[in-house]
């Protein structure tokens, strides 16, 4: 049998993994719950980072590395970040060659804009729907390989679990056909999960409805380590909605958008009638250097404070203004057209003439499946090492938002498209190496293994179809979301987390009393949902437990009870007292949270960062003012 590879997920990370495998002439089966062209990557708006340095600012991949590590409060292992930032310019060029309609300068070169957490113009963009454009480019290349017979697509198929052999290695997957509800097992020499983030665990977020994190949760239940679960990014600017919170890209601020509230509490005047000196541009005031482009964790906390603690939200609501009305409408249309349309369409107000009302919303999980790396003494990743992007389950890889690498405790804007593509570029060759090194001796996947993998899931679904209790699974899911939003977003309190841990156990009990609502065998979405919901509850449980146990503030994880004192000097490094407290905190907590599933609940351990033994950059306090 020729080697076979499986990639689960057809977003940017998955498709780039597929392309790398197919380019090497390998056969790949790609599984996706939606046609891959409809994956969540389409929602990324602002752009993709790369220190191409076309604006005379002296930008360099080293500065990109520093911004990324510092933005993540030094919780990311450093060599993968270095690899990513150094590859970024050529990744952007590659996408350019694939035909992505990136915005151009008058000379016909790629244009770059500013994004949060950096002082450089480093973000290449295609209007304000960059993710969509990038995904389409990769989708097109994969379609080419499909025509060549190297890629088989299984669309409307849902990953159920990986299949383990007696040595604990991954030898394939079980998957569910979401149309016919058939379950099948598929063999593979290596499997890559590129299944995105778990935003739907929070109910309403900026995520697509498909981002349940179910595959990640199930893999964690089956023994994959889930790392840094407590680090979930809340994006500062989204439009609250009944079905989801729609993202208002950071690029709005990158192009000059300003955040403000009226200085007078509960001011009922229309925003344009409020004179300049009666507006409070609180980010610009507090962070003169970065202004509106502080990293997302910082901006979200500031907005939360202004609204929740000071009660200064616009018209007493949970909202602040995001104002782009001072930017000429033709510039807005050219550079931010996509998001201008979204606001207009969904809010019925033209943001070119009226400031947008926005509020923070859950956006991105820095945490995810733990993934390995192998670097040399110079902190360069070893090309083609089978350890790159490998989970702790031999033969199982993870890329994209579903892995935990690259972003530490907080992701910088426009680094996610980059990390997805880079991880895919690294994972493909790693999977090929593994198959070459390990699998030859193993031979074909025994059919008994596949049969038992299928049987386990046939039985599980037979049990789900029989569920006839009183609980509606969608109601349980909604209440899980409400619980997570209440207890594990911008500000976390241990007392609240303790309560939430009790409540998640109750929700798990209620899951057992669910009604499947539909016993049909054609597109039975509620049966699929009942299965996903359990996996989501397991992730939610882990997120809460990891949040409860980390008694510090770092990046997106903020516990006021354990915040460091404010430094007394403009540069924190000049305040010895602060530095002592900061160092003590790092000694205790600058570690990755390793979550392992047990029948009794999540088990949490902490792992030292390997790269800090020979760091590219020594950690330093974050400050952006």
């Amino acid at each position, binding site marked *: 049998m020729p080697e076979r590879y499986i990639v689960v997920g057809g977003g940017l990370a998955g498709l780039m993994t597929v392309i*790398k495998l197919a*380019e090497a002439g390998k056969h790949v089966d790609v599984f996706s719950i*939606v*046609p891959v*062209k*409809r*994956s*969540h990557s*389409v*929602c990324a708006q602002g752009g993709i980072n790369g220190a191409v340095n076309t604006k005379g600012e002296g930008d360099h991949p080293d500065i990109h590395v520093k911004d990324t590590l510092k933005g993540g409060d030094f919780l990311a292992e450093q060599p993968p970040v270095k690899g990513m930032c150094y590859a970024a310019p*050529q990744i952007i*060029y*590659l996408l*350019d*060659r*694939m*035909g992505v*309609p*990136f*915005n*151009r*300068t*008058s000379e*016909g*070169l*790629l244009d770059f804009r500013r994004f949060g957490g950096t002082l450089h113009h480093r973000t290449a963009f*295609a*209007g304000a729907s960059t993710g969509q*454009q990038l995904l*389409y480019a990769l989708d*097109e*290349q994969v*379609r*080419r390989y499909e025509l060549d017979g190297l890629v088989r697509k299984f669309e409307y198929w849902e990953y159920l679990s990986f299949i383990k052999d007696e040595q604990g290695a991954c030898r394939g997957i079980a998957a569910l056909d979401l*149309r016919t509800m058939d379950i099948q097992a598929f063999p593979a020499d290596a499997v890559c999960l590129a299944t995105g983030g778990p935003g739907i665990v929070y109910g309403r977020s900026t995520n*697509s*409805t498909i981002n349940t994190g179910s595959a990640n949760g199930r893999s964690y239940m089956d023994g994959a380590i889930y790392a840094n679960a407590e680090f979930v990014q809340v994006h500062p600017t989204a439009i*609250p*909605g*009944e*079905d*989801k919170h*729609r993202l208002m890209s950071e690029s709005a601020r990158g192009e000059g958008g300003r955040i403000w509230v009226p200085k007078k509490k509960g001011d009922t005047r229309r925003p344009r009638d409020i004179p300049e000196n009666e507006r409070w541009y609180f980010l610009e005031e507090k962070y003169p250097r970065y202004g509106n482009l502080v990293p997302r964790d910082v901006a979200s906390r500031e907005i939360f404070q202004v609204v929740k603690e000071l009660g200064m939200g616009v018209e007493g609501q949970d909202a602040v203004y995001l104002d782009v009305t001072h930017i000429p409408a033709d510039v807005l249309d*050219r550079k931010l057209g*996509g998001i201008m349309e*979204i606001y207009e*369409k*969904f809010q*019925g107000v033209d943001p070119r003439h009226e400031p947008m009302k926005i509020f923070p919303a859950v956006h991105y999980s820095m945490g995810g499946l733990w993934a390995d790396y192998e670097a040399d003494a110079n902190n360069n990743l070893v090309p083609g090492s089978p350890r790159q992007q490998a989970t702790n389950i031999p033969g199982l890889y993870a890329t994209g938002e579903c892995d935990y690498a690259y972003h530490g405790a907080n992701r910088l804007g426009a680094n996610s498209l980059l990390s997805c593509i880079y991880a895919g*570029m690294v994972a493909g060759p790693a999977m090929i190496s593994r198959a070459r090194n390990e699998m030859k001796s193993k031979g074909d996947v025994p059919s008994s293994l596949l049969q038992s993998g299928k049987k386990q899931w046939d039985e599980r679904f037979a049990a789900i179809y029989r569920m006839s209790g009183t609980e*509606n699974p*969608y109601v349980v899911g*909604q209440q899980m979301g409400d619980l997570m939003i209440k207890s594990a977003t911008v500000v976390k309190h241990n007392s609240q987390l303790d309560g939430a841990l009790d409540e998640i156990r109750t929700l798990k009990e209620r899951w057992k009393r669910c009604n499947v*609502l*539909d016993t*049909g065998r*054609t*597109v039975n*979405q*509620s049966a699929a949902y009942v299965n996903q919901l359990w996996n989501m509850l397991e992730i939610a449980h882990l997120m809460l437990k990891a949040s409860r146990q980390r008694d510090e503030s770092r990046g997106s994880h903020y516990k006021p009870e354990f915040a460091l004192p404010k430094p007394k000097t403009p540069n924190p490094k000049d305040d010895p007292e602060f530095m002592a407290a900061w160092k003590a905190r790092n000694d205790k907590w600058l570690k990755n949270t390793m979550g392992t599933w047990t029948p009794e609940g999540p088990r949490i351990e902490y792992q030292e960062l390997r790269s800090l033994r020979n760091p590219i950059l020594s950690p330093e306090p974050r400050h952006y003012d």
Partner: protein
Amino acid sequence: MPDKVIVRIERSDGPGQASRWEEFQVERRPNANVISVLMQIQRNPVTAEGKSTSPPAWDAACLEEVCGSCTMVINGKVRQACSALIDKLAQPISLQPMKKFPLVRDLTVDRGKMFDALRRVRAWIPIDGTYDLGPGPRQAPEEQELRYVLSTCMTCGCCLEVCPQVTPATQFIGAAAISQVRLFNTHPTGAMNASERLHGLMEAGGVNDCGKAGNCVDACPKGIPLTSSIADMARESAKQGLRDWFFRDERKRGAGPAG
């Protein structure tokens, strides 16, 4: 403003099965859209007459009108359910599956033929590889702006749904794929393979089957200039036909474009 939303959904259990209408009544919520109403029904799948039923099946993903998933026929008009705001819809609201695609169940259909069409017209830039080969060709901002608009096509199927030329008996490829040929043929690298894509449009069901009804451009949620794409590609295909005829001898010798 009534405090209820009344929705009528055309349902069927699968291909070839009889369809039926079910009516639902849900509480009216601020900022509601068709998706949030369908979510309310999932949480309480009981018809207006009080009969328990299964939650209707529907496709969705991004809910921001960039993925194309949740396309359906709402009050007789094909559009995305996520951007169909309840406040702007006459009630009772009727929801139906698209009719120009094979039905799967309830509001879900199989739009696979649209992706097949993209394969047929070779809708990609045939890059040499993913290695570091430097930047792509320079492009004028005006050119980028046109390509960007064409590239926002999310393969939602609205243009096929409203096209009188798309019927079970015909094989017209539809505006979306034709416009994609224009997208790639206007790219400096893509232009090198323009003839391959044009040949994809010159086969049966190609650009010449367009009946010029012009419904597509009105139905496109992204404002893509579909009729000008079709006119442009019809012209280019005609020129390609002439080129093929003039150079037919060379083609016979094996130098011809791949279909």
